[in-house]
């Protein structure tokens, strides 16, 4: 694994009025890494991720994503990242093919690129037969996998996944993680937030946010040693219990 940093965050803070959603966080993510971003509800992970994607301006601090400064080069960042939101983000009243064409189109892919990419993607997801059916007719698991592939359509350097496996059955979750591994093995950096502790074990490195701060950072093995827990769930519980703010 090359040691090139693709995400570098320094003392990043986001305040909404009196409320500090993200409090002075600092971390780096290396290229090709699967970086797990954990935290209880309201711990600030989504806010942090939204800042890195350019959906929200930081109050203070520095960050660079894919080698571009968050403040100065937001447009360059946008071209180099993929994003899968917490909510299902494909158009249900469009067909599989129309969705692919649309998202390919807004990333400026040529018709030929879109064709190649979508063929590749449809074979990988075994969606060939459903290409002309409306997305709302697909089962949830397939839709989630398709959302991921659509986020990967323009071969971004980094892909941000915001709780991608929420509400999905265990088998589909396994398949989903296979897709993530494949993407990482091709050199894409994966930045993923999750609630599932078993998924945390799949990550190369994990950060755990509590009350807007990064309280722990390291590989799952390191963290388990550090907190002398037998699994990531144990680590998480020890940290999350300290939290002073609940749902938010």
């Amino acid at each position: 694994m090359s040691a090139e940093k693709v995400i570098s965050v320094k003392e990043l803070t986001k305040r909404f009025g009196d409320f500090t959603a993200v409090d002075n966080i600092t971390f780096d993510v290396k290229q090709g890494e699967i970086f797990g971003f954990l935290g209880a509800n309201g711990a600030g992970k989504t806010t942090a991720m939204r800042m890195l994607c350019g959906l929200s301006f930081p109050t203070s601090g520095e960050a660079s994503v894919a080698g571009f400064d968050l403040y100065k080069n937001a447009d360059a960042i946008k071209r180099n990242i993929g994003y899968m939101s917490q909510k299902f983000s494909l158009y249900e009243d469009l067909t599989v093919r129309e969705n692919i064409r649309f998202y390919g189109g807004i990333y400026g892919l040529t018709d030929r690129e879109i064709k190649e990419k979508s063929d590749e993607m449809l074979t990988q997801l075994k969606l060939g037969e459903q290409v002309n059916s409306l997305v709302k007719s697909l089962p949830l698991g397939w839709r989630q996998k398709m959302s991921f592939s659509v986020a990967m359509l323009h071969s971004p350097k980094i892909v941000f996944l915001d709780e991608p496996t929420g509400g999905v059955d265990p088998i589909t979750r396994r398949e989903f993680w296979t897709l993530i591994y494949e993407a990482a093995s091709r050199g894409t950096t994966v930045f993923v937030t999750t609630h599932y502790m078993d998924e945390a074990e799949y990550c190369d490195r994990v950060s755990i946010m509590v009350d807007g701060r990064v309280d722990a950072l390291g590989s799952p093995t390191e963290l388990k040693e550090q907190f002398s827990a037998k699994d990531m769930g144990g680590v998480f519980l020890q940290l999350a219990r300290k939290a002073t703010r609940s749902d938010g």
Partner: protein
Amino acid sequence: MKQFTYFIKKEFFHVWRDKRTLLILFGMPLMQILVFGFALTNEVKNTKIGVLDNSKDETTRAIIEELESSRYFDIYRSLGSNADLEPAFRSGKIKLAVIFPENFQDQLHHGNKASIQLIGDATDPNIATTLINYATAVIMDYQRNMRGQPVYPYTINTEMRMLYNPQLKGSYNFVPGVMAMVLMLVCAMMTSISIVREKEMGTMEVILVSPIVPIRVVIAKMIPYFILSTVNIASILLLSVYVLDVPIQGNLALLVGLCLLFTVTVLALGLLISSVAGSQQVAMLISLMGLFLPTVMLSGFMFPVENMPIPLQVVSNLVPAKWFYYIVKNVMIKGLGFEHIWKETLILAGMTCFFMAVSLRKFKTRLE
């Protein structure tokens, strides 16, 4: 630019796939024109009246005939006695009763004076007044004919001419109003709903993360509704000319141009709503309460603005539809040229720029 065409295509898919909304969009102008044209009208026509003829002589019969042959009245039935009056009014079968006293003709010929009683149902005061006036006019006409030339040495004759709408047709008044209403609904409500829907669905986030420029997202959203509106403008104008016989007196190009200007105004309003509303229901509610209602109440289409209390008149100036209604009425019905409406057009254009600027600003800050 290519991104942009993909976006517009996608918007068309949304509109096209949603058949129910599509039906409403195209059916609404048709419905409104037909409903306002043929059902909801405040013209007095073929009103049922009751006649109580206690005299039953030549003169009363002649007057009754006159009343019946006018296009305003239909004799519902002849009433037998005073006792029949009350039930006939109460059941709503008649709106006006004409009562001749006994020996009407004798009194008229020998006493030189006879009276006819007119009783109107004043639950709707305007209609009652109109009916009484019409009936009086018919009776006066009869009297004049009976007497031949007036015998007074000095007479003042009033000659009336109803300009721009000689037949006093209600449709002249409401076609411009319906146009404002339909554009309000199609553009403002649909645009705001379609933007808010993307916020609700979460697709807006994904679009905003992509390199597409936000302003293009907004414009791409507006284009399908702009095109739909042009179709609606065309269908309203065609319907009013060929079905309702309301001619376009003024310059057609000017009229269409001004309609398109108003479409842009309303699109901007829709965008403004979408930046405030968090859900589709809220967007719809704001469109209805904040746009549609003032359009109906304060544009002068239902109620004349001049008769409103001063504060309401002031408020009505803020309603874009008021200016649009004024412009369309003047161009379409009166046939005036641009030189007579440039002030109103300027106001409308100013409003459009203002709304557009505010909503684009708001749209941007929302992304942060």
